[in-house]
């Protein structure tokens, strides 16, 4: 960086001098990042550790006897179970430790991957976007120092979390080698996604774009693995196309294979090298994917509050919509797999799903699962509204002749219509997926599956109603409560049947009230109640917003 100032002697040996210079300040920056993130990083590491301890010890609580364990393990041995959690190694002869590795370890890996993505983006692209990177780089700080410090922070925290996950395994009396392998797999997944994010941070101009690219890779990895693992016990070829698949092919406590981790570590290292190389190919603040020029004048549709709301919410909702449509298509297309599996399964296992027709039971279950995600899109949209307010754009927008009611009403209108559209798209995706792959009678399920998706609307909208009411009266709490509802709904939908939850608590799950169409008949009472909650919530929210101040500090 200071090359012109170097003496001729130094110029003759430029490699060492300039290499040192590009990393100058790494240590200081690392200290600075640790200072900034001391609570955030600690919380993540503790969160991952807690998940590790919970999973390791919960197994023996959930399944007290050998029989319980065998019946639970059969869940993870069948295609739907494999699809949700992994290839199901050793589920024919289940032990607590095998159940832990097969059923739960994946969630630890995903947590580590998310932490890695968020942390690398936070300290690279987000800093550049905010203009702070410029301030930092104006000091004696080398070109690669920021990325290096961010990676060291991420990987050190990952190593710490992995170490504690190992402790969790050992504390549950699990085999040390297998526990170490679980921890090492988590670490390798972290390295892979930290590396991938080092690349996406160079590609995108915004931190949201960088996170979305890396997060998208994680989602694709998950989806590909789902398809691969559902096909065969132990995973099929498709499982090997997913980095999450690699982490599970280690088969801890069963085969104890270490070599699949080399794939993760190798590609992670390649990604990191590529990230460094790409960062030298661009200017600070610039991106490799160029920003395009837009319209000099607005289209007529933009000149209304609804137009403003649409442009605000469009980006996020489009992302959710595409991802969920693809997921719907994919879940639908597993119908034949389930049907094949149902024939070969003993009847007592297929009864775990609602109704007699296992394939329909599976699809009804997936419809609820997708509804949770669609509601998540809604909560995320409402979170964006809160962001509009805190960032001052709501205030600026309402300085035009737009009333509080009209502002919130327009945004809600756009949000609700979009969510209904996504619901229909997901239903359509599941219907098309099933119709396309089923060997016989595919067409006849299409209408039912479409309806199954659309019928989740009351539950999704009830969540919107609750969060909107809070947005009007307790804006600070609104989004957080929304995510708690989503998280609880997700856990209850996925594991509710396995956990011994008191009825009163289970009743609180917004997504647990609708009948599981097409296996069960449509029930109108819950539909009415949920719709009522939605409408009351929206009205309450509008009233609250009408009478409260905007962005009150």
């Amino acid at each position, binding site marked *: 960086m200071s090359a012109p100032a170097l003496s001729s002697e130094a110029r003759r040996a430029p490699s060492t001098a300039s290499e040192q210079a590009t990393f100058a300040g790494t240590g200081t920056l690392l200290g600075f990042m640790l200072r900034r993130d001391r609570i955030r990083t600690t919380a993540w590491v503790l969160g991952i550790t807690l998940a590790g301890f919970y999973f390791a010890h919960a197994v023996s609580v959930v399944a007290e006897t050998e029989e319980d364990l065998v019946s639970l393990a059969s869940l993870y041995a069948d295609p739907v179970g494999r699809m949700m959690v992994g290839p199901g190694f050793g589920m024919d002869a289940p032990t607590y430790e095998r159940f832990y590795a097969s059923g739960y370890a994946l969630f630890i890996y995903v947590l580590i991957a998310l932490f890695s993505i968020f942390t690398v983006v936070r300290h690279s692209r987000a800093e550049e976007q905010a203009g702070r990177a410029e301030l930092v780089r104006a000091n004696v700080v080398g070109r690669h120092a920021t990325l290096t410090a961010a990676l060291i922070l991420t990987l050190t925290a990952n190593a710490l979390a992995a170490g504690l996950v190992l402790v969790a395994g050992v504390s549950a009396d699990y085999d040390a080698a297998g526990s170490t392998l679980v921890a090492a797999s988590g670490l390798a997944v972290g390295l892979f996604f930290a590396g991938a994010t080092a690349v996406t941070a160079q590609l995108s101009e915004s931190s949201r774009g960088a996170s979305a690219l890396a997060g998208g890779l994680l989602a694709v990895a998950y989806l590909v693995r789902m398809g691969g693992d559902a096909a065969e016990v132990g995973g099929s070829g498709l499982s090997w196309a997913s980095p999450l698949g690699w982490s599970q092919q280690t088969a801890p406590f069963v085969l104890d294979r270490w070599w699949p981790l080399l794939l993760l570590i190798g590609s992670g290292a390649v990604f990191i090298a590529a990230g460094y190389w790409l960062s030298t190919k661009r200017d600070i603040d610039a991106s490799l994917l160029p920003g395009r020029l837009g319209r000099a004048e607005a289209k007529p549709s*933009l000149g209304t509050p609804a137009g403003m709301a649409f442009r605000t919410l469009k980006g996020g909702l489009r992302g959710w919509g595409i991802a969920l449509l693809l997921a719907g298509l994919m879940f639908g297309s597993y119908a034949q797999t389930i049907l094949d599996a149902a024939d070969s399964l003993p009847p007592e296992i297929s009864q775990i799903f609602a109704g007699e027709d296992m394939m329909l039971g599976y699809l009804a279950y997936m419809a609820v699962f997708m509804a949770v995600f669609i509601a998540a899109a809604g909560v995320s949209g409402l979170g964006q509204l809160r962001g509009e307010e805190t960032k001052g754009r709501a205030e*600026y927008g309402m300085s035009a002749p737009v009333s509080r009611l009209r502002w919130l009403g327009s945004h809600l209108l756009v949000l609700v219509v979009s969510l209904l559209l996504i619901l229909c798209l997901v239903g359509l995706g599941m219907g098309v997926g099933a119709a396309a792959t089923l060997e016989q009678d595919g067409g006849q399920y299409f209408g039912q599956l479409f309806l199954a998706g659309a019928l989740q609307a009351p539950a999704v909208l009830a969540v919107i109603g609750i969060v909107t009411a809070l947005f009007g009266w307790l804006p600070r709490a609104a989004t957080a409560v929304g995510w708690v509802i989503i998280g609880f709904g997700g856990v209850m939908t996925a594991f509710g049947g396995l956990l011994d939850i008191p009825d009163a608590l289970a009743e609180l799950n917004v997504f647990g009230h609708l009948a599981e169409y097409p296996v069960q008949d449509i029930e109108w009472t819950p539909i009415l109640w949920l719709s009522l909650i939605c409408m009351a919530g929206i009205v309450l929210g509008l009233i609250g917003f009408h009478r409260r101040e905007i962005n009150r500090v």
Partner: protein
Amino acid sequence: MSESPPVIRTQDLVKEFGPVRALDHLSLSIAPGEVHGYLGPNGAGKSVTMRILLGLLRPDSGSVEVFGRDPWRDAVSLHERLAYVPGDVELWPNLTGGEVIDLFLRLRGPYDKVRRDELVERFGLDPRKKTRTYSKGNRQKVALIAALAADVDLLLLDEPTAGLDPLMEAVFQEVVKELKDQGRSVLLSSHILAQVEALSDRISIIRAGHIVESGTLSELRHMTRTTIEVETDRSAESVAGLSFVHDVHTEAERTVFEVDGDHVGEVMSLLADLGIRSIVAHPPTLEQLLMRHYGDDLSQRGVSSGTGAATSGTRADADASVRATTRTKKVS
């Protein structure tokens, strides 16, 4: 002008955020066609005033009227007649500058496209860029163009030129003068005293949520001190004893001092007797107006007791002391 009802009238406005009193019996009045400079340091309550005038916040007590109506209740109809430029302009990152301008103009109804294009041209804005790529100055330009191109009677400008370069600052002053000639009213809050000085008919100085002085620039000058630099044949040190003369410095024959605005005449005749060789008199600048208020504040409160820092007190010191004042108020 005094017979027509004021465009903005606030009486004893009080606004509290938890323990902090942001506005403390604020009374402000702006006549039609007036450019009103609104001066005060950060945290004095300028932006809070703007947001109350917009009906985004509700005062705890006191009354506020814009065009004779309550901004909290009649926000929408009032907003058709006014435009606002926020102090810290945040725009929708996925819209272009041109789109934001059009959005705001259209929300107010039909607009003059020629006027819009002319302002885009004069401010040198590239309207095709996404606002996320704009610098602070360019974001400010977007909000300014959207407000200045609107056919409204009142402009609420909250530090509108923070981040603009001097050339754009000049363009801004030009445009505001044109609007003033057309009879529009402007409430212009600013740190940039030269700008307020150049544009404003009247000025209000706000400190800790309270208007401490209000009037035309010449009225304010009357209430303040003129700086005089004089070289005399005989020593001018005798003026130091006068009650209305302050800060006397003498270097050989040259004497520099400040005199209260309403005693300039007396001092001049005194000096004339001493044999004036050369004399320079500065009217008070707004910096002095402000510094006097905050300087007094500092010395009264003994923040810098004995160090003499009151005179050299920086702006940051002044701000800190204002905040300190706000805090003490809430306790009492």
